[in-house]
């Protein structure tokens, strides 16, 4: 039996943070006696990821996503629980472990500001002990794939945000890690660049059979890359599975959009609708009906028979709406 590449059991991380009120009195008070508050950043999280999977980490700000990634990359020591990544206990930070993993933090840089990226790449190659010939091949490949040829000899400080992010990816991949933690890799990038990075990440996953865990507030990233999502809220794992299944569970309805012949305002009347359907919007020959998921085909058929339909589409509610619902309340 294959061992999962990442396995996490009962992982918990709590912090004690100093707390004081605003104002001079509270400041003076805190000098004498500090009060602390316990923050449960990650609570009893359990999951496992097979080698070669790409898994998306969903959750509102402060839910514990980055903390979990930092635990798995060995930057944090857990309060309790255990984890294994590529066969290692991450927080021991053994060199053999560090050579197999990579972490990209969208808001932190590996690059040295004053010198061209190529110099940073070479130093990292030596630090990770990549044989020179292999480093050359890998760098050529990454530089071509990410279209960086013209940039790698310019000082980093002259590069744009997107260009720097591409360089960060080169830093993260030049020693061909088998496990990748990507924290907001598309932060601050334009739509085109985001799309290119997604293609690139999917490609790396395929060719290197790399296991990838990524967080993103850009849902398109998650939808394009991850067949599986972990949803974390208030430090707890609330959902582990397919994003579309989650959507169906959260939004047990579909929208039926109708374009009607003529411009009859009476067509928007609820009276013509069967049970399980209701009109959510109607204007000038356009009608949007909310239909129970199970009854949607029957409702659509009914509408086709009873109304002068020019065009009909059935669609799921936008994923953003579902995720918003999720972030506000969590799945039931």
């Amino acid at each position, binding site marked *: 039996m294959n061992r999962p590449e990442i396995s996490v059991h009962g992982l918990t991380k709590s*912090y004690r943070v100093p707390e004081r009120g605003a104002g001079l009195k509270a400041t003076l008070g805190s000098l004498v006696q500090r009060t602390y508050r316990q923050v449960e*950043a990650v609570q009893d999280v359990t999951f496992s990821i097979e080698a070669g999977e790409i898994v998306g980490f969903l959750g509102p700000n402060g839910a514990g996503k980055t*903390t979990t990634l*930092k635990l798995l*990359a*060995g*930057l*944090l*020591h857990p309060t309790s629980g255990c984890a294994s990544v590529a066969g290692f206990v991450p*927080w021991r*930070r053994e*060199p*053999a472990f*560090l*050579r197999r993993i*990579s*972490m990209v*933090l969208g808001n*932190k840089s*590996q690059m*040295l500001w*004053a*010198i061209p990226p190529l*110099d*940073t790449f*070479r*130093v990292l*190659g*030596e*630090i*990770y*002990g990549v044989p020179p010939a292999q480093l050359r091949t890998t760098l050529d490949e990454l530089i071509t794939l990410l279209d960086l040829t013209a940039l790698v000899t310019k*000082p980093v400080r002259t590069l744009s945000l997107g260009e720097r992010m591409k360089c960060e990816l080169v830093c993260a991949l030049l020693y061909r890690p088998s496990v990748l933690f990507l924290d907001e890799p598309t932060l601050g990038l334009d739509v085109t660049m985001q799309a290119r990075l997604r293609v690139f990440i999917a490609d790396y996953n395929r060719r290197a059979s790399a296991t990838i865990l990524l967080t993103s507030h850009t849902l398109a990233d998650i939808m394009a890359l991850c067949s599986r999502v972990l949803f974390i809220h208030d430090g707890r794992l609330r959902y582990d599975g397919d994003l579309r299944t989650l959507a169906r569970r959260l939004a047990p309805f579909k929208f039926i959009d109708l374009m009607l012949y003529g411009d009859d305002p009476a067509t928007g009347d609820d009276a013509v609708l069967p049970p399980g359907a209701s009109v959510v919007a109607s204007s000038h020959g356009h009608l949007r009906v909310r239909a129970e998921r199970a009854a949607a085909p029957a409702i659509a058929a009914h509408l086709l028979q009873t109304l002068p339909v020019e065009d009909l589409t059935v669609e799921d509610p936008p994923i953003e709406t579902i995720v918003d619902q999720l972030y506000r309340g969590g799945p039931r």
Partner: protein
Amino acid sequence: MNLRAGWALIGTTWTMRLQTRGLFFIEALSWMVAPLAFLFVWVTAAGSGTVGGFSRGEFVAYYLLLIVIAQVTNVQHEWTVGDAIASGDLNRLLLRPMAPVLDVLAQDVAAVTVTLLFAFPVGAVLALLLRPELHPTPSDVILFFPALTLAWALRFCWSYALASLAFWTSRAGGLFSLHAALLFLLAGQVAPVALLPKPLRAVAILLPFRYMLGFPVEVLSGHLDATGIARGLAWQLGWLIVCLALARLLWRLGVRRYTAWGG
């Protein structure tokens, strides 16, 4: 760490230093200003006689050596490594399959070589102009090298231990300023330690600061007898062991705390 990685890191630091060469030389010059000022004070005080056994030419020799050695042993980890800890940049180093201290070491080695490119010519020109008098015995010259190496190692460890304080507090700046002041006062910068008032001299001999800077200068300028040199080397070694242990302990505890609290 493999040697190639070490060279690569040193090379990178060179490149970066050369990118900002203008500022760098100004910085190097600023470190020379204080010893130069004291050189002129003591040269004037000595006139054509001596002060505390130092003649004019001996003061010149002492301070010119001090300028060069101060640059060689100059480390500022309490600021650079301390900043990395406080800002969370340490994460970058912790994720690498290499001890962070090696990165710091490579940067220091690179910095020293660049600094010397500046300090040696300036020292040589000043030597031509001010005519130093230097009478080291062959054994002084030989013993100078271990004294210098130990001074550098001691300062490295001491500075690293100070830097580790950033794991606990972001307000250690006051302590660092105190360190700089003590280094200035007790390491032989204001005056050679032999010329300090008696109580202050006793303190200077006890504390580690003299052994980070003034002591190798005293050895090479021929102001110490064999016993003085032996005692000094013993103090250096003792303080080095203490500071090395302290730096290791604070760093380990600090990293444990850092990974417990989050960067």
